[in-house]
């Protein structure tokens, strides 16, 4: 084996070892310390988020006028939801275009908070319209008209979408 060949092989071996050593280059302790600090600040910020959420609800949506509208998909629905419109008291209050991730989250059983607002106690007309496509690719366009009965406490409305119908419940 020539000198050059030997030296090339040694270089290649060194490269291989160096590649592995690189992964250990940074100090583990340093990583740990910084990582723990990042975890701590995440905890602090999450706690601020919780406080702000409560403050926001109290300040902007007091319980006696608050109404929240949630949207979910009926079990096992496979249709593609493209968009949804909400009209409350004859005013358009929400329009949402769905991304793939949002649609997947709904299909897995997630519930979307689509609208939070304030209304007085009593009856309020609500119109829900959605657009989408069936598995076979044909268009779906559905509209449902409902009445929200707002009592003294916070109003919670659940809209469940299915290819064939829109269900509504409030409390």
């Amino acid at each position, binding site marked *: 084996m020539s000198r*050059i*060949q030997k*030296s*090339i092989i040694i*270089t*290649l071996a*060194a*490269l*291989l070892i*160096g*590649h*592995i050593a*690189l*992964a250990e*280059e*940074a100090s583990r302790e340093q*990583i740990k310390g*910084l*990582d*723990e*600090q*990042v*975890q701590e*600040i*995440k*905890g*602090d*910020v*999450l*706690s*601020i*988020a*919780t*406080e*702000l*959420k*409560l*403050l*926001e609800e*109290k*300040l*902007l949506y*007091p319980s*006696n006028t608050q109404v929240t509208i*949630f949207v*979910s998909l009926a079990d096992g629905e496979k249709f593609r939801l493209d968009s949804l419109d909400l009209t409350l008291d004859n005013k358009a209050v929400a329009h949402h275009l769905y991304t793939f*991730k*949002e649609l*997947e*989250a*709904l299909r*897995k*059983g*997630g*519930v*979307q*908070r689509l609208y939070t607002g304030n209304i007085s106690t009593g009856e309020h007309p609500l119109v829900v319209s959605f657009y989408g496509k069936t598995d076979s690719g044909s268009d779906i366009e559905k509209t449902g008209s409902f009445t929200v009965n707002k009592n*003294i406490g916070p109003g*919670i409305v*659940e809209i469940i979408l299915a290819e064939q119908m829109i269900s509504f419940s409030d409390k």
Partner: protein
Amino acid sequence: MNRLLILLITLLFANPALAASPAAQRELKDLFFGEALYHAYQGEWFDAIARLDTELTLFHALDEPELDSLYSHLGQAEFDVGDFELAYRMHQRAGRAITAVIEGDVEQTVRNRAIYRLARIYFQKGQPVNALQALDRLRGETPADLVDNLLFLRAEVLMADSRFNEAVPFLENLQGAKSLAGFAPYNLGIALIDDDREEEGRQWLDRAGQIEVRDSATAAIRDKANLVLGEMLLEEKNFEAAKLIFDRVRLSGPFSDRALLGSGWADAYRGRFDLALVPWSILAEGEITDPSVQEVMLAVPYAYGRLGLYSNAALMYGRALEVFSIEINKLDVSTQSILDGKFLAALVREELKQDANWVVTLRELPDAPETYYLLDMMASNDFQEYLKNYLDLKEIRRKLERWQDDLNAYAEIIAVRRAYYEPLLPEIDRAFQKLDARMRSCLQQRDRIVKRLQTMLLMPRPDALATAAERIIAAQLTRLEQTVAASGQKVDNAISARIKRLRGLLLWSLQTGYDQRLTEAYTDLQELNQKIDVLGRQYTAFVRSRQTAIQSYQGYDETIRLQQVRIEEALIKVQELMAEQGNRLEIMAVNELTLRRERLEELRVKARFAMADSYDRASRVQEKRGVKP
């Protein structure tokens, strides 16, 4: 060396992706819990934790939590919050949350799922003993989707604790697990080799290297098995077998470069330099920043030299020299670019977030030379941890800044509300006080009537139900009777009889109409009560509205001030951590580039000497042939 290499590779990569994802939910009864899941299913961990934390905080503050809709999901919710924290890389909090679930009153399947997560945290944090202790707490029914993963985790933990012998039976039991196809035989091979059962281990690596490819993960583990096995065979000079194994590795996979290099060396060591040129020539066409490609730029002319083609070799060494010089310059530019802060700017580009293959894409960004050489480093665990923290901090900073704006807006809303309501309230209060006094008087009257009617049920008093006209008549008759009595004169009998008759008529009317009158009095009382009820509701609504008006601007100042201080402090901390984290990323990148530069320098020196040597040899050959140089 091979052992170390194998172990490191095993621990770093040989497990299938087991991303945190909430378990399938039973019928959802709490919409707010469903909302947290909605965010979690999209990987929006911060929002998912924040929502669920809020709900759990509210839930725990309830007087009768068992009546709340979250009650039926409580165990799952508390488990999920730990799971989300784990996904958000908050291992400490996740560990605490999951431990609380394990120790709480939850179903055995939920507890076992929590134990699995906790053990994974310990394993990922390099605490195999704690991980094993957690796994030993498994009892009863295991969720079906976790059975294989639990066995695999136990094997991984045992391997991390150098207990290869104990890991083997678990891995043997997993050979039929479809979800672990490739991973189970690969790890079994490694465990056996490290347990000094090399022959058996190689057989499993060989099996792993021939598994049916179902997806990119199994393809990668198959390639890795072949690469590891090939390098082992190469080291022990079994070149023919090594060649066969290296050639199994896909040309398009992440291990193709090293396999091509090894394949060439398997030929070269056997003196088959013509054959070695085949894989090496393919590799030479690869990305020049790749270490294997740079190495092969010396290997190819070396093979030509060994074939006696010294002129070609000399030219190729010259070309390598040129390329190495260009690359060294590029590295200098990249290093400067990193020091100028452009590396961090490239890492946080928005368009990269949409691309799952973003690390590779980074290298292809036309205006980000600082990333060209960092592909391997960026794929390393340390770098990924640093980067994820950096990106998380950046996102947190964005949120904090937005919340600062929100709080300022809230303060403005409160000021507007105060300015509107405060001047109105004194006048409203005065009017309300009058109304309140009248209402109290009405209520007192009503109460008196009720009392009187109740007394009359026991002791009938017809006179008490006389009409106003009847009362006047009764008073007139009394007056007449008194006048007659006082005059002392003899009064006409006819007049006396008439007064008596009238008195009798009045009594007759009161006595005979008493029941009817009592009934009417009760009917009137009911009507009165209805009106008082309406008035009472209006009264309550007014009190509530007034309270709402006051609550819409009172009692927030301290909360807002406190949150502003907290946000400010958090922002300072985040900035510091970002600077530190960013600095480490830059140092890591600069170190990597420095290392690569040093290696390129070494290669350049080798190329220079080898080129000179090849020219000498070429000249000598030409001299031998009688050709003038």
